[in-house]
């Protein structure tokens, strides 16, 4: 929330690494976490005489992103962005400047707000510098080590219009964009591994004003949480500056996660003059229609459409919290599981809740989850074979190690009560308490809890509450 009387104006610049097998301009592996300087060659090390050759797959992925963000896809030109930095092998970055591949798109947030996309262009990533010795920070390190494995990895930089108005909305935008990137197949959107990196341009103005305030660019936002916190802090800082009679200086600022503040990195005057000019080692990029059709072929529906489809599947069983759950499962690419479960006859509310809460809590585990096993697991709870508590324990194991949910349940001693033995126990309990049974049959549903308690006692907790209620209902209907 912005301080009273103030409105924030926010635009985000998101860099995402593309899921190509090789780098943007050479044949080196595009992989995260390998031994430093093992995925390198004369081209991505910028050795004298080496020349770039554009990776077609990267262009296809960029077109997928452009298509997913409703952009106009155009013929484009690569430029050189010149500045000295040790982790940039050529001391210039090959990027796109005034003729980017994707322009003028939009992204729809789960609440149906649209955020404009100014451009989404292709560029190469830099290497990674580690400061070593001394205090280990940039200014007091004894020396620096550079790993060029990341140098030349293909990126798409997605620049939003300044349409975002709060830290929360910025987080929603980043989350939605991540989901779109994942759905397009172009990127894995992992902020924690740096494959999706967000910079925020923040300015403030008085409510009702349509002037733009002086903006600051905030860098080093490594999670959705730090994105939200940093913007919140930056809005507060700028409002305080203006309210105390000062003026916001145009700066690049660094988010200090530990201290929870943004600190000035460099001012407008210190900004680099990048001396952009057309990259003479590459030819203009003008893929024909068939290339573009191939690029986007097989691309599934985007999150907004998938949310609509899931809501339709839920057949009216959606509350406000249900809508949040829909957004969550789509964002995490788990909506396929929910749909499969509903189609297999699992109760929609249960399928959605378990997926949005329990499955979603273990994003890593869901990546190699077998949909068949997952539906089988849901059915066990749905049919009262497992209690909710038992079901969660089985899922944890299923996500962790995989396997057959029935076998996991058996191994945990969650021996599903055979239906006929449950019927027998419920019958016994009912016979033992005729007065309570009488009242239950006359409509006092609170007594269901009493009977569940009795059955649990008799079975040492092995019965499912749901199954007991179902049996009670069956008995009372016949009574």
């Amino acid at each position, binding site marked *: 929330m912005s301080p009273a009387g103030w409105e924030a104006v926010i635009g985000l610049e998101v860099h995402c690494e593309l899921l190509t097998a090789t780098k943007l301009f050479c044949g080196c592996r595009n992989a995260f976490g390998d031994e430093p300087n093992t995925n390198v060659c*004369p081209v991505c*090390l*910028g*050795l*004298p*005489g*080496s*020349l*770039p*050759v*554009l990776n077609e797959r990267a262009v296809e992925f960029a077109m997928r992103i452009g298509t997913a963000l409703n952009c106009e896809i155009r013929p484009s030109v690569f430029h*050189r962005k*010149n500045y*000295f930095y*040790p982790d940039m*092998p*050529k*001391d*210039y970055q090959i990027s796109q400047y005034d003729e980017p591949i994707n322009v003028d798109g939009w992204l729809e947030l789960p609440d149906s707000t649209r955020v404009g996309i100014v451009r989404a262009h292709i560029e190469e990533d830099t290497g990674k510098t580690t400061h070593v010795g001394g205090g280990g920070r940039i200014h007091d390190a004894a020396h*620096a080590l*550079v790993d060029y494995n990341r140098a030349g990895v293909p990126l798409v930089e997605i620049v939003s219009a300044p349409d975002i108005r709060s830290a929360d909305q910025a987080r929603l935008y980043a989350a939605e964009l991540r989901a779109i990137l994942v759905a397009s197949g172009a990127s894995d959107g992992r902020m924690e591994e740096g494959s999706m990196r967000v910079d925020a341009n923040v300015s403030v103005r008085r409510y009702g004003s349509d002037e733009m305030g002086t903006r600051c660019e905030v860098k080093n936002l490594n999670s959705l949480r730090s994105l939200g916190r940093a913007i919140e802090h930056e809005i507060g800082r700028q409002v305080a500056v203006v309210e105390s009679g000062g003026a916001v200086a145009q700066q690049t600022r660094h988010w200090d996660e530990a201290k929870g503040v943004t600190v000035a990195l460099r001012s407008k005057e210190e900004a680099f*003059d990048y*001396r*952009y*000019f057309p990259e*003479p*080692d*590459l*030819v203009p990029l003008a893929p024909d229609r068939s290339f573009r059709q191939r690029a986007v072929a097989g691309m599934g529906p985007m999150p907004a459409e998938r949310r609509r489809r899931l809501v339709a599947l839920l057949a009216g069983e959606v509350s406000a919290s249900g809508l949040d759950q829909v957004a969550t499962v789509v964002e995490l690419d788990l909506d396929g599981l929910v749909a499969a479960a509903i189609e297999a006859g699992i109760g929609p509310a249960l399928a959605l809740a378990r997926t949005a809460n329990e499955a979603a809590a273990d994003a890593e585990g869901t990546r190699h989850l077998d949909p068949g096993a997952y539906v089988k697991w849901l059915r066990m709870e749905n049919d009262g074979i497992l209690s909710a508590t038992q079901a969660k324990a089985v899922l944890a194991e299923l996500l962790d190690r995989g396997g057959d949910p029935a076998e996991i349940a058996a191994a945990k001693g969650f021996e599903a009560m055979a239906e006929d033995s449950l019927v027998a126990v419920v019958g016994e309990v009912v016979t033992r308490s005729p007065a309570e049974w009488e009242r239950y049959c006359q409509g006092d549903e609170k007594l269901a809890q009493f009977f569940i308690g009795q059955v649990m006692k008799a079975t040492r907790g092995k019965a499912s509450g749901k199954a007991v209620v179902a049996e009670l209902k069956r008995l009372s209907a016949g009574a």
Partner: protein
Amino acid sequence: MSLSGVSATALSLATDVRSGTIKATEVIDAHLAAIAALDGELNAFVHVLDGAAREAAVAVDRRVEAGEDPGPLAGVPVAVKDNLCLRGAPTTCGSRILEGWSPPYSATVLERLVDAGAILVGKTNMDEFAMGSSTETSVYGPTRNPHDLSRVPGGSSGGSAAAVAAGLAPLALGSDTGGSIRQPAAFCGVVGVKPTYGTVSRFGLVAFASSLDQIGPFARNVADAALLFDVIAGHDPLDSTSLDRPLVQVGPCLADGVAGMRVGVLAELVDGVDADVAARVHEAAEALAAAGAIVEELSVPEVRYGLPAYYLIAPAEASSNLSRYDGVRYGLRVEASDVAAMNSATRAAGFGPEVKRRIMLGTYALSAGYYEAYYGQAMKVRTVIVDAFAAAYRGVDVLLGATTPTTAFPIGAKTGDPLSMYLSDVCTIPTNLAGHAAMSVPFGTGAGGLPVGVQVLAPALGELQMFRVASVLEAAAPPTPAPSPPPQGSGGGVR
């Protein structure tokens, strides 16, 4: 004083090696002996590949003995400019900043040479990063002109031109960004070819100005130049600017003559050059007419804007291409308190004055607020020149002019005056801006008996008609004096 080594042509050497008449080892030994005898004075080579060259020659001989054909350049020694990357061999571009650097890979052209049976004999001297017209800005000192040791061989590929002229190698490779093959070829009395941009792969050529650089051959005669051109030309997937289209071999068409060919004598490349040079161009035009060509005078005034446009575009690209020499990864490093200071100290110590001047020019031309007025404007001029040439080539097949405004000038004559040095490329630059082909053919001598080169210009991919014209000119040319007599003992059994 003048010098010469081995005089045998590349074609005859290759023919004899392929037929087993002579051994590649004899050929390389003769050339290595010539280098040992003469290069102390010439300074054409910065690095002689004696060991590797001999090993390669032994391998060629083995193949011949085994009944195989090592290729069209079997056993032919080729000298290569020191801005071409050769795996494991020093590649310095005549600069201190690349001291001690050996690339882990080879340029595509060098791979093609080796595949064709050629023997790489050494890396040749050059102006630092190919910036210069006299081979005087090299950290290894100036190369001398074999026709007159007090004069420059031209540049920037002066080492290659001098090596071929002096008989230290029958063939050499250079690179031509604004005339760096043709101008030294003219000064040294040899044939020098700047192919159409995109015809020869630039992969492994250390970049000066990427949109202008092109690798090309030096030879003592047109047929040898054609032989080398036919080997190095062709598509390379490692160079995105390489043209992917079938090339016509020029070698088989050299004798086709020029009857009926339309030749335009380009006024801008004749007017204003020294009288002795202009006289040779007119004689060359007459020789073509005598051979049946239709010769006319014509003017393309736009080429006059070539020089100023070039001196914005080339330095602009160079300023970016040379950024990577920052002391971080290879070559020279001058330690300092932090990375930025180390970058500055390294570049201050590693680059010579001409390279620094061009980096500054180019950085300025690309700077915010100046881009449109300088780089942007120069690119527009480039388009104008391309269009003007296109119009001219609607009426003629080739153009004829001087290669250089003067013959070879004395060492030191222009080092203090960069502008007058830049003017030595005024006749060659327009071809680079247009991306066209052009070559310099020796055509008699000027004042003081120094060689004069006549330039044949052709449109993009016009190498065929260009070489045909060159062949006729060569046949009609007054003899160019060989840099002779050779010192005692040089040349061995191969002459």
